[in-house]
């Protein structure tokens, strides 16, 4: 009887212990990743785990949100931002390992519609303006949104198109607006609609790079990961030829 009564507490205790242990396992690395880099990072993480045995734990989201979380003590060790300003700001605030900031990818902007024949090869559709909703990432908080606004302003269509704007909180949500057909077209990251040399179904226009400032995406080794082998290994891995090949296959420049 007594032994039976003990079984549950013991099992619970063992469970708690094992949960506690797995939590402090040394070869895990906590990574904050910009939403637009979701697909390539999943692939890089899988390769990294295969090659080194370290296990990256990935969180995807908006760069501004990650900044607020990191400055308030979030446990991230490596941060892949969607811009170069946020990592620079973290560097100034001494929240990263010294000299660990580098550009891991240069994002490209594309005007995309889930329907064939909506977007033409020269972006003329923006001048005609025969649509109800144009989706873009919120330019106030997302670098791809800023780039979209810059391109439209250079084309001289910004003010005429502004009433059609619908803004996603980040580039993933912007993609969702277009993919579900609720917005006829919109500006997304090339990485979202491009894989292995092929564009996703629909129609697209690669916005010429002279129409917007290059979207430099920087990564940093955060102060929390400074002395962790798994974290430094991942930061180095992002610079490897293998990682670079994956990054390029999703349509980023390097």
């Amino acid at each position, binding site marked *: 009887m007594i032994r039976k009564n003990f079984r549950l507490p013991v099992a619970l205790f063992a469970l708690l212990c094992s949960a506690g242990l797995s939590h402090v396992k040394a070869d895990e690395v906590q990574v904050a990743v910009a939403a637009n880099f979701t697909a390539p990072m999943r692939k890089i993480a899988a390769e990294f785990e295969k090659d080194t045995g370290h296990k990256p734990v990935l969180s995807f989201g*908006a760069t*501004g*949100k990650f*900044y*607020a979380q990191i400055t308030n003590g979030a446990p991230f060790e490596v941060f892949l931002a969607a811009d170069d300003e946020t990592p620079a700001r973290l560097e100034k605030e001494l929240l990263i390992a010294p000299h660990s900031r580098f550009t891991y990818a240069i994002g490209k902007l594309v005007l995309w519609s889930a329907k064939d024949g909506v977007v033409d090869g020269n972006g003329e559709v923006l001048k005609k303006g025969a649509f*109800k*909703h144009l*989706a873009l990432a*919120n330019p*106030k*908080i997302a670098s791809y949104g800023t780039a979209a606004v810059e391109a439209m302003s250079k084309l001289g269509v910004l003010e005429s198109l502004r009433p059609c*704007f*619908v*803004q*996603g*909180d980040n580039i993933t*949500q912007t993609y*969702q*607006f277009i993919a*579900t*057909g*609720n*917005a006829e077209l919109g500006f997304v990251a090339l990485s979202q609609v491009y894989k292995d040399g092929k564009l996703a179904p629909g129609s697209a226009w690669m916005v010429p790079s002279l129409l917007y400032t290059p979207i430099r995406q920087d990564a940093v080794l955060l102060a929390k990961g400074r002395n962790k082998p798994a974290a430094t290994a991942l930061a180095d891995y992002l610079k490897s030829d293998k990682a670079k090949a994956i990054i390029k296959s999703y349509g980023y420049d390097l």
Partner: protein
Amino acid sequence: MDMADLGAVWLTLKLASVVTVLLLLIGTPIAWWLARTRSRLKGVIGAVVALPLVLPPTVLGFYLLLVLGPQGWGGQLTEALGLGLLPFTFPGLVVASVFYSMPFVVQPIQNAFEAIGERPLEVAATLRASPWSAFWSVAVPLARPGFLSGAILGFAHTVGEFGVVLMIGGNIPDKTRVISVQIYDHVEALEYAQAHWLAGGMLVFSFVVLLALYSLKQRGKGEAR
């Protein structure tokens, strides 16, 4: 607070008012039916009404985006009716909020109807009141505290709505950019001072609403005794 903030405040109050009125109109018959029926469907309908209590707003927002989009049956219906597509519009937010805040209005009213019991309505019937006039002259006055709680909760919950609006709103100034989205934008853009004005305001508002609600309940209990 700048013009954009004030625009968001005005839009939010407008949305919450429209939604509360609509919910009182739609929710009352549902609550009445749920309170009185012996149908086996009661469990099903009650569960559907309560779904937003447990569903993450992103689930509701995602399905609304699909259903109300050009490929969804809801979107095809609104287009056939000549209303156009609802996502990214004020009416779209109203529809989403009606679903989202439904349990907060229906449940207090339903509880109030159930608390009345059969007796007062039977008495009204023996006095030759038609079911319709018994409803208006007996059930509704007796259920007044339930209506008040429902209206206050529905209004406050719509003001506090975020996830659904973010998913189907598209963040358009004066059309779909409500206070919660505006606060989120300020925080994301690291404009913490501006965020504090709105966020602090929301905190005070929510507290005052709940305080009003609970003192109302307290008073109601006092009267009953």
